[in-house]
């Protein structure tokens, strides 16, 4: 019971103490205290995962338990997937703080406090059992993230990135809030289980359909789903490396977690007869995001923007997994989030290391200048192959589970599209290995790329990469690779996901404190087709790596850097999704 509250309170209170006491002289003390708090969160969340293996942990704040199935109080709900995601966010926060250990520019400006507030927001969002509580934690996480993205506000690019990030995500939060307000107006409840019970067994009307569309679009903004994704590359490319890895590994994923949680607790009842429509809409958005993210990733020469667009592409693959509205696919999503998040985090740190050694993140400027950086070259190469979902590593297992679930539902054509998206992303990273670390292929013309020299980290004197950064990077990538080899992983996650998608079990656990956990459905091993798709995408990535930068023409021009354009796209996307749902669901 007390674990859930502590997991939120520890980082929040530590942040308050740090904010009140941090000064330049006590930099190391702040490092140590923040690391200890983040590590404590990991421990608490892992304990919650273990505790939740029997039945989910439900804590009613202030002892306001539900009476006769009516909840007036606010609950924190920890099941294995939710607590697991919170633990993963904690791991990335620890890694981020370790990387920040040697960053001079993060001293004394409330950096550690902000990281811990983001972490508290993430954990709170994962554990919230109540729509408005979820919204408040979502905003807490968002506002601190805006501040962290613009941490080096003295430069043009971070300032603009933070502005775009803050404005678009605020509009997204407003959509979410309007959706929540409509749901409250219809049901008089904010508790997820209670709203779900009130809406179940009723035909969905236009109000429910629009509320679903608004909530989903609000989360799409954070999850960077096309056409809500424009802000992401601007924000992630300019934040300090230590922050990038937390953002790319966990922040966007939380948007998808929000969609999955709300769909399966609230909307899966009323929208049951229309599940195919919902699936088709989400699948179209997911595939578009995967392909556009992959293409934009392959078209980048600014390395941090490249990894940022890799995040967009992967969010598309993840949305495809959620879109299948199926426990087995969701298990694949969970496996993919961890494996891919770790590799991408390691990748960001490796880019930071390259920048530290060579003073640039522009692929053309760096041409051939990484020949003597063997360790970094190997690291980039491994990251590229892992991001291309080469078997048998972490990202591969997750994607393969999603593909198998899609084939199982008769959507076998989804797999080749995901293969292309993964190959574009992995191929882009492998191309950097070819040009920067091997110096092969035609030498690109020297020309300035916008924002290349302003990548968010302080230009420190060149020298050996700081040890903590290298260690963190290797550790993260190694963990991401090994994640796919954990014995019994597929079974355990499939069981947890089967519980996650069971609306009546959720309602029973929250409102009646009875949770007969369904017998664990053993996950099926990966099919041969999935292994072949994995090998195919790795091979395709190598082919793409041998080609020059992929031209994307007009697509690139759409990413104009103008916040007004981004909000216009956001509004158009919302109108489209809401229109489709309002016309087809009731």
């Amino acid at each position, binding site marked *: 019971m007390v674990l859930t509250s502590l997991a939120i309170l520890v980082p929040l209170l530590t942040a308050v103490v740090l904010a009140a006491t941090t000064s330049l002289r006590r930099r190391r003390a702040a490092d140590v205290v923040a690391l200890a708090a983040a590590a404590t969160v990991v421990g608490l969340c892992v304990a919650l995962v273990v505790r939740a293996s029997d039945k989910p942990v439900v804590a009613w704040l202030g002892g306001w338990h539900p009476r006769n199935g009516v909840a007036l109080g606010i609950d924190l709900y920890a099941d294995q997937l939710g607590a697991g995601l919170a633990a993963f966010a904690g791991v990335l926060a620890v890694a981020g703080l370790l990387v920040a250990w040697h960053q001079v520019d993060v001293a004394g400006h409330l950096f550690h406090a902000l990281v811990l507030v983001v972490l508290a927001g993430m954990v709170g969002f994962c554990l919230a059992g109540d729509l*408005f509580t979820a919204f*408040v934690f979502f*905003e807490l996480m968002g*506002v601190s993230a*805006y*501040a962290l993205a*613009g941490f080096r*506000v*003295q430069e*043009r*690019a971070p*300032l*603009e*990135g*933070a*502005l*775009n990030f*803050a*404005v678009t995500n*605020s*509009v997204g*939060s*407003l959509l979410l*809030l*309007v959706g929540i*307000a409509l749901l*409250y*107006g219809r049901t008089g409840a*904010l508790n997820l289980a209670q709203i779900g019970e009130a809406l179940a067994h009723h035909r969905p009307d236009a109000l429910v359909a629009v509320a679903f569309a608004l909530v989903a679009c609000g989360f799409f903004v954070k999850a960077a789903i096309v056409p809500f994704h424009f802000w992401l*590359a*601007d924000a992630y*490319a*300019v934040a300090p490396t230590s922050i990038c890895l937390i953002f790319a590994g966990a922040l966007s994923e939380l948007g998808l977690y929000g969609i999955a949680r709300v769909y399966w607790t609230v909307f899966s009842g009323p929208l049951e007869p229309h599940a195919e429509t919902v699936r088709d809409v989400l699948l179209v958005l997911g595939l578009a995001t995967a392909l556009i993210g992959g293409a934009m990733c392959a*078209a*980048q020469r600014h390395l941090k923007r490249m990894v940022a667009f890799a995040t967009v592409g992967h969010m598309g693959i993840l949305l495809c997994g959620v879109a299948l509205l199926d426990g087995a696919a969701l298990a694949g999503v969970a496996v993919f989030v961890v494996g891919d998040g770790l590799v991408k985090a390691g990748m960001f740190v490796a880019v930071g290391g390259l920048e530290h050694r060579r003073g640039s993140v522009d692929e053309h400027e760096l041409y051939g200048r990484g020949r003597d950086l063997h360790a970094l070259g190997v690291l980039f190469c491994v990251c590229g192959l892992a991001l291309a979902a080469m078997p048998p590593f972490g990202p591969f297992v997750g994607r393969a589970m999603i593909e198998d679930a899609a084939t199982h539902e008769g959507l076998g054509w989804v797999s080749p599209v995901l293969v292309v998206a993964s190959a574009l992303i992995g191929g882009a990273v492998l191309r950097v290995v070819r040009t920067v670390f091997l110096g092969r292929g035609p030498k690109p013309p020297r020309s300035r790329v*916008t*924002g290349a020299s*302003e990548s968010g980290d302080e230009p420190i004197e060149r020298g050996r990469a700081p040890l903590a950064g290298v260690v963190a990077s290797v550790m993260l990538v190694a963990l991401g690779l090994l994640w796919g080899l954990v014995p019994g992983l597929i079974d355990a996650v499939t069981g947890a996901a089967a519980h996650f998608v069971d609306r009546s079990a959720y309602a029973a656990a929250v409102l009646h404190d009875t949770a007969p956990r369904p017998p664990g459905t053993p996950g099926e091993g990966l099919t041969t087709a999935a292994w072949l798709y994995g090998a195919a995408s790795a091979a395709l990535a190598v082919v793409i790596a041998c080609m020059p930068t992929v031209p994307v023409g007009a697509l*690139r*021009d759409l*990413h*104009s*850097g*103008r*916040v*007004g*354009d981004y*909000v*216009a796209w956001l*509004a158009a996307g919302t109108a489209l999704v809401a229109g489709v749902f309002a016309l087809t669901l009731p």
Partner: protein
Amino acid sequence: MSLLAYLVAVWLFLAGIWGVVSSRHLVHLIMCLAVTQSSTYVLLLGIGYRNGGKAPIFGDIPQSTPVVDPVVQALTLTDVVVSATVSALLLALAVQAHKRFGSVDPDELNALRG
């Protein structure tokens, strides 16, 4: 009465979004965002409104008096706090943009493209 509240909320939302999309001045843009945010206040209060309802403070009115929904009022208050935080942060960024780059036109920052 309540229909009017919903129409006002929709109008504020759309007008604010239009302002954000078309703005050429950061402070103007942030104010338009605040207008959009205020549409959610109107919506929330409209949802909890009851004709003839009193303020939900039971100190000096009988228990049986019809009152407006206190939950949405609590939500609105929280929402106001969240909005104020976002606006303050954005205004701080606008001040930095003016101080360091001498411009508050979002188009002139122009460091990030493609």
